[in-house]
Structure formats: structure tokens, C-alpha cells
């Protein structure tokens, strides 16, 4: 069972959300997601200034096995992206919840955070997938 930090929120599509408590959130993919994908070879990120909608795809992570869409768990404006991933996509494999973050969003509807899963609920989803 992979690591699922308690201080983060999660989406069923395996993204994590960290509330920066300034009206913005940082988003990445979970450790479980990177384990399933295997070694990443390419990450395509949105551009700063893009508008993202909750539930819509806004980034792509590509491994030797598959290219997979990343869905934004929240709506808002992209205010930063992790540019270091262009040269080092493996960072997502090494530190999915930290240096492997993907992008940061200024929330247009902070109430959406309430709809996300907590660590316990997300862990249940991961465990049910493993059976």
C-alpha cells in the first residue's frame, strides 16, 4: 500500500490537492498513480494563465507504458507550473507529493475543496482497485 499523506485532498482520478490557504492550491498525481504508470518520460503541463475546469483534462503524463490525462480536481486559473519537470519527469516518480508537483491553481470556487476525498476515502479507493 502506497503512502497517502493526511494533509492532502484527493480526486478519484488519482490527483492530490494541497490547500495553500491563500486561495490557491498545488496539484500533482499520487504516489499510487505514478506506481501504476511506471517511469515517466514526458510531462505536458498547462500554461500559466490558462483556465482549468474541475473534472476536465489539463495535463498529460507519459510513461513507457502509457500516456495518461491528468484531470484538474478544481476550477480556476493556473498561476504556476513545475517547469523543472520538462528536463526531469522522473521527479514525479521520486517525489510525487513534493518536488513532483504539477501546477498551482487560484481557485474560482473554494467550495469545490469540500467535494474532494480525504486520505482515508482515497485509501479505500486504492485498496478496492487492488482487489
Amino acid at each position, binding site marked *: 500500500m502506497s503512502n497517502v499523506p493526511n494533509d492532502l485532498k484527493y480526486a478519484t482520478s488519482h490527483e492530490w490537492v494541497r490547500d495553500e490557504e491563500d486561495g490557491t492550491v498545488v496539484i500533482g498525481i499520487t504516489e499510487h498513480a505514478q506506481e*501504476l504508470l511506471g*517511469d515517466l518520460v514526458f510531462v505536458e503541463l498547462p500554461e500559466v494563465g490558462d483556465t482549468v475546469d474541475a473534472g476536465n483534462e489539463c495535463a498529460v503524463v507519459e510513461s513507457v*507504458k502509457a500516456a495518461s490525462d491528468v484531470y484538474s480536481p478544481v476550477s480556476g486559473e493556473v498561476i504556476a507550473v513545475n517547469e523543472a519537470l520538462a528536463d526531469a519527469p522522473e521527479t514525479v516518480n521520486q517525489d510525487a507529493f513534493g518536488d513532483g508537483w504539477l501546477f498551482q491553481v487560484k481557485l474560482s470556487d473554494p467550495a469545490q475543496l469540500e467535494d474532494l476525498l480525504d486520505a482515508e476515502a482515497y485509501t479505500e479507493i486504492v485498496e478496492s482497485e487492488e482487489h
Partner: protein
Amino acid sequence: MLIFEQSKAGRKATAQAPLTRADVSAIPAQFRRKRSAALPEVSEMQAVRHYTRLSRKNFSIDTQFYPLGSCTMKYNPRACNSLASLPGLLARHPEAPESHSQGFMACLYELQEMLREVTGMEAVSLSPAAGAQGEFAGVAMIKAYHDARGDTARCEILAPDAAHGTNPATAVMCGYKVREIPTGPDGDVDLEALKAVVGPQTAGIMLTNPSTLGVFDRKIEAIARTVHEAGGLLYYDGANLNAILGKVRPGKMGFDVIHMNLHKTFSTPHGGGGPGAGPVGVSERLVPYLPVPMVAKEGDQFTWITEKDRPESIGRLTAFAGNAGVLIRAYIYARMLGREGMPRVAEYSTLNANYMLKQLQAMGFQAAYPQRRATHEFIITLKKQAKELGVNTMDFAKRLLDYGFHAPTTYFPLLVPECLLIEPTETEDKATLDDFIDAMRSILEEATEDPELVKGAPHTMPVKRLDDVKAARELDLAWSPVAE
């Protein structure tokens, strides 16, 4: 060793070299090369040995069993090739008038009719140059149909999460937004999820049935009804048509358009850059939009159907009649099978797959959908082996190469973790299937007793395990000569 690395300045294959320099004075000076092309300079014998050596490394259906799921790597009878090479077919000029092309046109007409009959569609056009272009033609016709009715708010194409990647790609190429439909736990499309997203914005749904999960969607009639009631059309991806050939007709399932991969179902050469052929068939309401040309029969004469006859056609996708030589091969194959032979394609592809599935299950491999009968292909998941033995799907696949088999498709479809998608095809006999099953048994034993042996495979191939991560991260695709 690359042939470039054998190059030595000034060496040439004298007997093969042209005696005179070509006259290029008609080409404007600014378009002519300033320097010679960087070609390898080798002798005739070096070139022959180099390419013969490479050809001996080929892994092909002519040498080995090739159970690559979703790809239908079956044997192509040599007769299709030799008959298609008859001078009357091979040497026919594409500009030859109808009166000089009646035999050729009769072949195309009969192929149109046979494909129409076996798919249960209203009409068939042969012209798309490959499956991908056939898909494009199919969705372009769906768009043309909605546009002609002024029904322009339909902006979405639905595709199940198990779909071939080409389906969403095609929809996007035609200007649609793609919406993914989840698969239920039994491998069928989740009908409730479909009902929740279908609506006035739905242009159509793209389905493969049987799907890439190796099961026949039993709810296809309900799916068709749901999409049709919302005003959308149904697209059939013909990738797995060999599983149902002569048994069930997509037209009867409610599909409005289908493309056929002739290289899978009708035994034309497989890929490698083509040429291919991807005919499309349609239901009555899409007939006006079919790509041209097609062949019509008037009395005992064959004539071309062109834009003049079909002003609403989506147009031409290829020069002349498409990849005619490939179409002729498919025609010969269909004639060789005949009406009695076509259902046997479905029967044997299904029998072979189910036989292998049962044998592999009996030795401890886990089926992805154990409650379902397989169609022409099936999925096993090595999740258990990966967890308990530390030997994953890729290790099994690589070790199969040492046993003389092409590996099945790995890690596709993405829905099933650690999966192998296995498609024996209808052209393999039981002895070959048993050899493969024995190899899987041996590898399972090796994985238990000596996992490092499997994890280090292949051991007997010209190259060992490749670093696919490094290869993808540091692309190095072109040999560059040492700077002069």
C-alpha cells in the same frame, strides 16, 4: 553494425552504379543539392550481406507464432499475393478507361458487395487508404450528416475507456470533443454512465465490439437505442471483426458506420508503413456522404461512381481507387473463404482464444474477466505474480522471446494492471497453441524458482533488455555522419 559504419570513402558497387550521370538541368539550381547525400559507401557484397543478416533477425508470422492481441497477426495465404500480381491487375494503368478495366472493376464491385453483406450495412466504399483514414472518413460522414440537417450543436463523440487510442484521436481530428465512458466490472460498457452523459450535444459513439477487453458487449442493443434516441449515431471500429465474421452483423446491432481493417480480417499485408486499406460501410442515412470513387454495376457493365453522382460525398481520400493492389488481395482472400469459410474465421479465432485461456487459467494465471467467455482474444493479469514473485508482465513478455514466441500485447488495455492481451488468431493449429502454453508454464516455474532468470530476459536475442526509459527520455533516432 550500421551500414554507415561499414562505409569507406570512394568504395562503390561498380556493377550496380549508373554508367552516366543523370541530367538534372531541368531542376532549378536553387533546388539542387550543393553536396552529395551522406550515403554509405560499400561494395555490392557488403550491402547484400548486411541486409541478408538483418532479414535473418526478422521476427515475423512467417517464422514464429505472433499472438499480439488487438493486432490479429495471422497468416496471409500466398495465393492472395500471387493472384493479385497477375499482369492484368498489376500492370493496369490507373487512368485506363472503364472499357479497359472491367475485370478490375468487377473485383472491386464484388468486394464492395461481399463486405456490405457480411457487415449488414447499406453500402460500402473501398477508397480509404488504411484503418485510420477509414475512421476519419467514418466520423467525417457523421459530421456531414448532422451538418446537412442543420444539427450543428452536436460537438461530442463518446468513446469507452477501453477504446483503441485511434478513436479519440479521430474524433479530435474531425473537430469533436471526446467524452470517455467507463467500463463496468463485467467488461461491458457502463450503460448507466452512458445514459448520464448522452444528450443533444452527442454526435455519436465509437465502439469496438468485441472490445479490446476480449468480450462481446451484450448490451449493444440498449447502447444503440440510448444513443439513437438522443439523435447520435453509432460508429463501429472494425478492428475485431474477425471475431464475429459471418456470425453477427454490425448493421443488425444498430451501427450507422463501420470501418474495416482489411489487414486484420481479410488478410492483406500488415502495416510497416503500408500500403493499407480501410473500407467504410454505412447505414442508409449516410449513403450520400460515402467517399468516392465507388464501383456501380449497370446491366453487365461496371462504372465509376464519382462526385458527379454523389454531390454530398465527403470527397476523395486517395488518388484513383485507393490502394487497389491491397483491395485485390482482400477480394481474393474473401473469395477463397467463400460464404462457408467466413463464419469459420470467427469460430476458430474464438475457439483458439478460449482454449488458450482455459489452459492458462488451469496453471494459475488469472483472467481479467473470468466470468466471461473470451472472443478472439483475452486478457490475463499477472498482478499476483508481480506481487508475490516480483516478476512482472514485461519480464514474462521478454522471456517468451527466448522461447521463440513473439510476446503478446503488454500493458494494454490500460484498465487492467499487469496485463497480457493474447490473440492466437484463427490460422494457428493446436500444436502451436500447446507449445505457447508449455512455454508459459515453464516461465511460471522459472519465475518461482529463479526469478532473476526471467527478470534478465531475453538471453538469446540479438539485443538484450533495452532501456526503454532512457530511449524515450534521450531520443536518438538518426545516425549522423562524422562532420567533414
